């Protein structure tokens, strides 16, 4: 258990890190009328939550794909999962909100603790867990039969959460996903009519609308162009502190730019994946302990 990295409480951003937040254009507060923020009824408890994996293993059928992952994803911080293809990063991410069990024949072992409670505990319902731990997928998947506005509100409808001010929630969620300015005049148009990058930010807004404690992102930018990627990264930077983010990425620069903590996954041929090294992103990219990590972050393999 010595490998497990425990973050300092409160999650102070590390020095010399985080070049993105400095560039983010802030929305002028005075331009908007001061309003009661929309209030959700029946949603997740407020605030970011710490996610912790203890000896997590995953199988597809008899095939062990992930072995003994111990990882802490501190509240309000961005944790990136890096590693070559097929090393179990996405599987691990799907363990974190119980999407893994939807695959026929999938199994898991170990514990995933959300603020100390095992999400695989007998008293936990997967639907509650997934409402608390949102997910953004690799391929943008807005609901084609719904308008932009209905897409944002889809989470409320689907998990029966009530809201005092739906229009305000739509605005707030789109604003947090930095999409509001681009779509505020066409909220009633179908979500499928947006560009790929806008669709992905719409999906982020949709996940944020239910006020999750954790947001999982599975290669959210791999299908996007550099400009859209930058917008999504800005969004991630703005969400820091409000929600815990776990992001899987193949883009080393992106992991370096957006994340506070980083975990490097690796799998030998026909062997299950495991975490080689984890820790603060600055250390992982600057002075990693394991030579394999150094080789990987410098692009020498994978």
């Amino acid at each position: 258990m010595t490998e497990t990295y425990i973050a300092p409480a409160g999650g102070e951003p590390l020095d010399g890190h985080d070049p993105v937040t400095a560039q983010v254009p802030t929305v002028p507060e005075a331009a908007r009328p001061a309003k009661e923020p929309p209030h959700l009824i029946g949603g997740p408890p407020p605030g970011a939550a710490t996610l912790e994996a203890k000896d997590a293993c995953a199988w597809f059928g008899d095939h062990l794909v992930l072995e003994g992952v111990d990882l802490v994803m501190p509240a309000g911080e961005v944790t990136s999962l890096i590693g070559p293809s097929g090393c179990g990063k996405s599987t691990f991410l799907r363990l974190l909100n119980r999407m893994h069990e939807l695959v026929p024949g999938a199994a898991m072992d170990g514990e995933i603790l959300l603020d100390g409670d095992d999400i695989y505990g007998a008293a936990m319902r997967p639907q509650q867990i997934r409402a608390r731990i949102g997910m953004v997928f690799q391929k943008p998947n807005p609901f084609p039969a719904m308008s932009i506005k209905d897409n944002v509100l889809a989470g409320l409808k689907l998990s029966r959460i009530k809201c005092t001010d739906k229009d305000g929630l739509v605005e707030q969620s789109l604003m947090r996903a930095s999409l509001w300015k681009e779509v505020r005049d066409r909220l009633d148009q179908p979500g499928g009519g947006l560009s790929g990058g806008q669709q992905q930010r719409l999906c982020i807004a949709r996940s944020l609308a239910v006020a999750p404690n954790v947001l999982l992102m599975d290669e959210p930018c791999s299908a996007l162009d550099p400009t859209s990627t930058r917008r999504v990264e800005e969004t991630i930077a703005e969400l820091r502190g409000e929600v815990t983010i776990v992001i899987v990425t193949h883009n080393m620069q992106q992991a370096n730019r957006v994340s506070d903590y980083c975990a490097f996954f690796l799998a030998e041929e026909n062997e299950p994946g495991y975490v080689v090294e984890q820790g603060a992103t600055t250390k992982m990219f600057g002075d990693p302990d394991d030579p394999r990590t150094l080789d990987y972050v410098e692009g020498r393999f994978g």
Partner: protein
Amino acid sequence: MDGVVAGAAAVSSISLCWLIFSVLTDGIGWFGFWLVAYVAFLAIYFVATLDRLGRLAAVDRLVTVVAWSAMIIVLVPLVLLVFYVLVKGLPALSLGFFTHTQRGIVPSDPATAGGGLHAIVGTLEQVGIALVISLPLGAMAAIFLNETRSRLRRPVRIFVDAMSGMPSVVSGLFIYATLIIPLAKDNSLFGYDGFMASLALSVTMMPTICRAIEVVLRLVPAGLREAGLALGSSRAKVVWSVVLPTASSGVATAAILGIAREAGETAPLLFTAFGYNFMNANPFSGPQESLPLFIYRFIREPLASSIARGFAGALVLMILILLLFAVARIVGRDRTKARSRRRWIPARPPRRAGTAQPPDGLALPAQEAQ
């Protein structure tokens, strides 16, 4: 140029066959003549194109001709059928067909006397009730097959496939044997009436609709279901709020295609609706007419006027089904695609000065037109 070569090949192949079968030998009958002429046409056309444009083009033309011929062979019976019914039915069809029943019509009356309003009403009612019964059941079965992970899916799928392959007369017999024979004497609802016909039609309609909807549901991307589940939704809510709305136009198409198929079914109605020459607008009591039964009875009569009346009914049935298919096409059209397909090019401004041009020597030389 291709057309000229094809025409010349056709003329020479027919001339060749005429020479062989009409002048030199005793002939092999009209079917053999055209079959040999077709093969000769393919050979001549292939060789001519081979000589003119080379092997690749020759094979291309040959396959194109074969594909077109196959299309025409499939289309000919359909066109003949439609024209036959049109020619036979149109003289007997008058506006009165849509406003009158067979009340007061005697066999010596001309074919245009009386009408089939009672049959149209019967068909609409029976098929409508059948749809109300089988759409929810068929849709639920399709959802069960596609959206659950039950072990029973395999047997259910085999069962649905078997049911859709069942002869439709069996469904009529099934209702006759299980409902009409044991229950009719106590309750008029279970006598010969339109409702029994609807039940018999649902038996054949349900598997049709189920399979059509299942195909549409399978087209809904799995990512949308995952997205719904990741928002904290139950599986049932995802099906209801995400999958079905996404597939809605396909589901509507499936329903309309189911109606169109059932509207032409005759066999399930023989022992259930029974047929009736006068108006019976109440589907829950007493024998009722429908268009297929109307056709079935009149076409077998010995009198020319009755047969013509049957053809008029067939024409009306075909028009009804054509309308339903048209509605299905309009409903099932992918609206997003139709909008983005550009049919006209809007006026564009003159080309901006300084747009990038390929450097000298890189542009391809202009091709000579063939």
